[in-house]
């Protein structure tokens, strides 16, 4: 990705020279995204356990538990494998994703009852992930190239100095959103809050992340992600546990054979 390296270089220089020349809001927005991406580079791989708690408007709950494995890919999007442990009817079902900086991601689902791997139409990335308020596109690897950006302002959020900016999906036809607004803290470049706007430009959902912890003295991960759908009143909470970095995962752990023995 030569061009992106050039852009990256350009923007990093721009950041370092600290406003030596004036940049547009779009340039600044992109620079922030690149900086956030850069700070997470080099984690190689990690695994984690996730509990997903679905809540309807009236507080009724349903839970799912999922194990996640992620592998960093040098010049493309990350690879990730999700293994479903509960509900029991889908135990052993595994979901494999190769995200790409440009173009549609590749996705497969392994169905243990059928003992077969099925490809998923990733054009439909805007749909709900396991009935939750998270769309696939919300939890997929957030590659810089998938959005265009615009910096809005700086403001305090939860006592932290934050950069507030908009991002717009490049693939407008298949995204469920027209725009997202992100609150990124200035110190560590963690996304603390994100608002999602739907096709009619109204606020659809808000994501709030909390309990951030730093791993290997570099990589920040949230312990809790809470997504509220303002239109339906439903919400989903993701609780993350047991983050482990540098576990020695390789490409071999992310192919169709690995899917079948994922349980």
């Amino acid at each position: 990705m030569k061009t992106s390296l050039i852009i990256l270089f350009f923007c990093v220089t721009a950041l370092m020279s600290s406003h030596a020349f004036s940049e547009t809001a779009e340039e600044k927005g992109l620079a922030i995204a690149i900086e956030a991406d850069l700070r997470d580079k080099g984690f190689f791989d990690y695994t984690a356990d996730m509990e997903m708690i679905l809540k309807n408007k009236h507080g009724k709950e349903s839970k799912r538990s999922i194990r996640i494995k992620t592998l960093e890919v040098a010049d493309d999007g990350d690879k990730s494998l999700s293994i479903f442990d509960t509900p029991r009817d889908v135990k052993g079902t595994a979901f494999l994703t190769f995200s790409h900086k440009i173009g549609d991601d590749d996705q497969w689902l392994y169905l243990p009852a059928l003992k077969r791997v099925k490809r998923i139409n990733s054009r439909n990335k805007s749909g709900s992930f396991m009935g939750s308020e998270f769309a696939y596109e919300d939890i997929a690897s957030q590659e810089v190239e998938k959005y265009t950006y615009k910096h809005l302002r700086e403001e305090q959020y939860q006592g932290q100095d934050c950069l507030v900016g908009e991002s717009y999906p490049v693939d407008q036809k298949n995204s469920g959103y027209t725009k997202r607004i992100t609150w990124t803290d200035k110190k560590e470049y963690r996304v603390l809050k994100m608002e999602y706007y739907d096709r009619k430009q109204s606020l659809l959902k808000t994501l709030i992340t909390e309990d951030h912890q730093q791993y290997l003295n570099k990589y920040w991960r949230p312990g809790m992600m809470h997504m509220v759908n303002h239109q339906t009143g439903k919400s989903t909470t993701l609780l993350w546990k047991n983050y482990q970095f540098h576990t020695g995962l390789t490409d071999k752990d992310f192919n169709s054979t690995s899917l079948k023995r994922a349980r």
Partner: protein
Amino acid sequence: MKRIENWVGQLVIKYRWLFILGLLAIALMSASGMRFLTFSNNSRMYFSKDNPQLQALEALEQTYTRVENVLFIIAPKSGNVFEPQTLAALEFLTEESWKIPFSSRVNSLSNYQHTRALADDLIVEDLIRNANALTNKEIGDIKAVALAEPMLLNSMIAKDGSVTAVNINIIKPEDSSYETKKVSTAAVQLKKTMEDTYPFLDIYLSGGVMIDSAFGEAPVRDMRALIPLMFTLLLGLLVVSLRSVMATSCTLLVIILSASTGLGLAGWLGIALTPASANAPVIILTLAVADSIHILVTMFHQMRQGTNRHNAIRESIRINFQPVLVTSVTTAIGFLTMNFSDAPPFRDLGNIVAMGVLSAFIYSVFFLPALAAVLPLTTKQDNHSQSHLFVRLADFVITWRSPVFWSMLILIILSTTGISKIRLNDEFIKYFDRSYDFRVASDFSAEHLTGLEIIDWALESGEEGGINEPEYLKTVDAFAQWFRSQPEVRHVYTFTDIMKRLNQNMHGDDPAWYRLPEERDLAAQYLLLYEMNLPFGLDLNNRINLDKSATRMTVSIPNIGTAGVLDLERRGRKWLEDNAPSMSTYGSGLSIIFSYISARNIRSMLKGSVIALFLISLIMIIVLKDLKLGTLSLLPNLCPAFMAFGIWGFFVGQVGLAVSVLIAMTLGIVVDDTVHFLTKYQRGRKEHGMNSEEAVRYAFKTVGSAMWITTIALAAGFTILSFSGFQINSHMGSMTALTISLALLLDFFFLPALLLKLDQ
């Protein structure tokens, strides 16, 4: 009482300017509350919070999200949906529909998530993409899929492929009229855009939001159309009966003040106008005019006899104060008992009219005479010929008392038997006549696709993930098939169809596998795979609950009426009890709760009607100071409503919500004529020592003409209400007009004959 009446007359003359200006100021202050009036546009306003059927519906909505919808119905003029330009238009409309405010889901033929097998993969994608580039063969394939798919057939595509639809689900953040307006405006705008861009299409707009919008439109339309008509009519009546431009203007002023006081006070009290309560002004105008006529007619009568104007006014107040007070109070009581209704709009109507009627009393007794005292009122009125006519009528009744009595009795009994022919019907769609676009659209939709009448079934499996249990799937499927075999059912939406289709897809699209999966985990994993493939806004969250323990089945029926809906629901419930007792539940939906509305309201109003009857009879007894006469008055007061029901039963048959308030409402009105007739009869007997024949003749002579005029005014006023495009109002108008006319008939023939028979 006598002292008060004299004192009021003196006071009004003495402080006439104070009364004129003071009451005018009070009227304006009350009327200024009209600026707070809002129009409620919500089909659920007819239900109180503790209505059990509404509560059941709301419980269902808590699980699956309360949704309303906007439905575009598209009929290409060519009669064939499967043409590239129509499919392209459909694709465009589907895209644009996402931009309608508060839309949460858009379903159409084009974004139907068609599933198929491709090699070993499951492909889930829009049925129609880039319609303009489709080949004839591809369109043929699309047509074959659409007409074979039970999810689409009769719901999104007509059997003959001539009509299709786009359904938009709306989730309003709050239940306010502002939001309904916003959605319906956007929908109408989009319809216009479509018509301009694709002139070869006929487009209709229906759906729950459009019904709500029509509920909001109805009162505005009624007020705009009926009030001017009412004024014209009253103007004519007043000119004819009063023969004075000045007196007519004064009367119009009084009734306008009364109506705007009633409405203004409603505004101050925060009452929102609904299609029912918006007719309060028409009713107030009708009722208020009688008070003024009584006051002015007596005054002119005195003046013609040579009394000077101030004395004539005093005398008129002395004579009329009591009857006008009594008739106003009884009318107000009748309307106030509408508070027993389960439907809040009727409570509002009752309260607004009661306030208007009582203010009409105040303006007629304090404001009108004061105004008459400062204005040069004269009349050319001559009642002589009319009273002569009523003396002849009296002679007729006296001569033929027995035949008259018995024929009236037979008439009462005969007409009342028609009550058995009355059938309650509350199809909320038919509340609106075909002058409403949405009614035309709904009829069209009911003819070619599904109607707006649906019954929803929340089917519980009893455990988390239980909807994937083969036993559960089989039962739900059997239930769906049972519904499909019922003649009145047009469409059944059940998630078991998705399951069968997925099973087929997973077996290389082999039609032999179009059946339910037989293992629970397999079903669950198919479903997971399918759900992972669905795009934004097309998930199954409106069909399957959170922990996958229950699903929702929707049965659509073209508008078949209350009895049909209730019967189908009862049979469905019976099927569940017989075949799946653990799932047994009630069907729910707007059609269901409207189907119960009349019966429920009749029950709730029964108490109100009894109380009204008791209070009004008590007032009659007190006023007449005669237990026998007071009790006797029950007959001519109560019979007209029953006769009206019966005649309605013979000639119309179907009746809805309006019927529930009829007795309470008309009782307070028809009692007026009885009061007038009986007081005069009694005065003849007691003050003038007449026998019953002479007293009947005296009563006819003195009040016959006034009763005639006021009844015509009232009947005409309520007949105008029957021109309303909103069925509840038009029924209420016709039935009330009928009741009032029958009441006059009974007061002229039955009551005197009865008196003659009993008082010999």
